[in-house]
């Protein structure tokens, strides 16, 4: 009954079956938060750490997170690595190809604000949030898998706070969460 106790539901036994009364928001948010499929996409050294997190030692699968090789099937984009001006245009297109609701995690110093390439660099974009909206920022060079997973948990918390009614209107710009 451990799980059932956490569900905000009223369960009633009637002959021939059960009826569960719960909130639509809760069901949808819980299922979305537990199946954030992320895009198979990395830009630089941070992507190596993302791969490590996806592999068996840290194991993203237990979050219900599975990589998808197509933006059309992804809910979440890790911007893992150095975003050059040239690449930023492509990242923007990929972000637009993802179906709503979509989320972005900026992973590492480079994606947050240019990181080690902030000064004296002609080619690197100073933060992916200049191009697409970001939900969670994870600093580090590179962030350890633990930080990445904490970022995902923060994003799950954020998804669980959303309401169905938010979907009807234009989704507001995400608030900054710094892990």
């Amino acid at each position: 009954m451990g799980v059932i106790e956490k569900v905000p539901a009223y369960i009633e036994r009637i002959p021939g079956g059960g009826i569960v009364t719960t909130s639509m928001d809760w069901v949808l948010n819980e299922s979305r938060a537990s199946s954030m499929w992320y895009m198979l996409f990395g830009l630089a050294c941070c992507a190596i750490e993302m791969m490590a997190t996806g592999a068996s030692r840290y194991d993203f699968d237990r979050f219900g997170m599975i990589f998808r090789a197509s933006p059309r099937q992804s809910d979440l984009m890790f911007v893992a690595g150095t975003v050059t001006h040239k690449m930023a245009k492509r990242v923007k297109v990929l972000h637009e190809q993802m179906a709503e609701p979509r989320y972005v995690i900026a992973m590492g110093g480079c994606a947050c604000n240019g990181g080690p390439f902030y000064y004296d660099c002609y080619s690197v974009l100073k933060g992916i949030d200049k191009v697409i909206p970001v939900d969670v920022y994870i600093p580090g060079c590179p962030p350890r898998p633990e930080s990445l997973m904490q970022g995902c948990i923060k994003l799950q918390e954020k998804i669980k706070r959303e309401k169905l009614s938010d979907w009807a209107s234009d989704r507001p710009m995400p608030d900054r969460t710094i892990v």
Partner: protein
Amino acid sequence: MTKEEIAIKLKDKFGSELEILETNQPEAYVYISPARYHELCQFLKEAPEFDFDYLFQLGGVHYPEDRFELVLCFSSHERRHNMILKVKLDKDNPQIVTTSDIWMAANWYEREAAELFGIKFVGHPDPRHLLLDDDWDSGYPLRKGWTGPDFISMPEK
């Protein structure tokens, strides 16, 4: 060949157009005048005693006081020797003939040097941008003193 042998052979053929640099490096360092640059490259590639068939680096250097330099490094798979070739280019209008007809590898290296330093390679078969975006129009970023739209220089300590 040792670097001394390379130096002597080249000096014999190119005379005063060629200058040997004294270094403590294992390779020969050679300056050539722009006028005989292409001829020398052709010679180094084709002469059997040199046989420099592998161009592994070509890049620009900007000396803001007086010149640009082009630096070519090549080696020979067969003879196992290396060599560094340098050319001094004009400060205001850096321009040199292409070597992409001699080494295929020069094609991309020259495109890179052209977009980053603004060195013009006369006769290059494909003078598009290589690394920068096609619509880049903020000048030549590896020249000293360059600044661009999104550029922040390191503050003084």
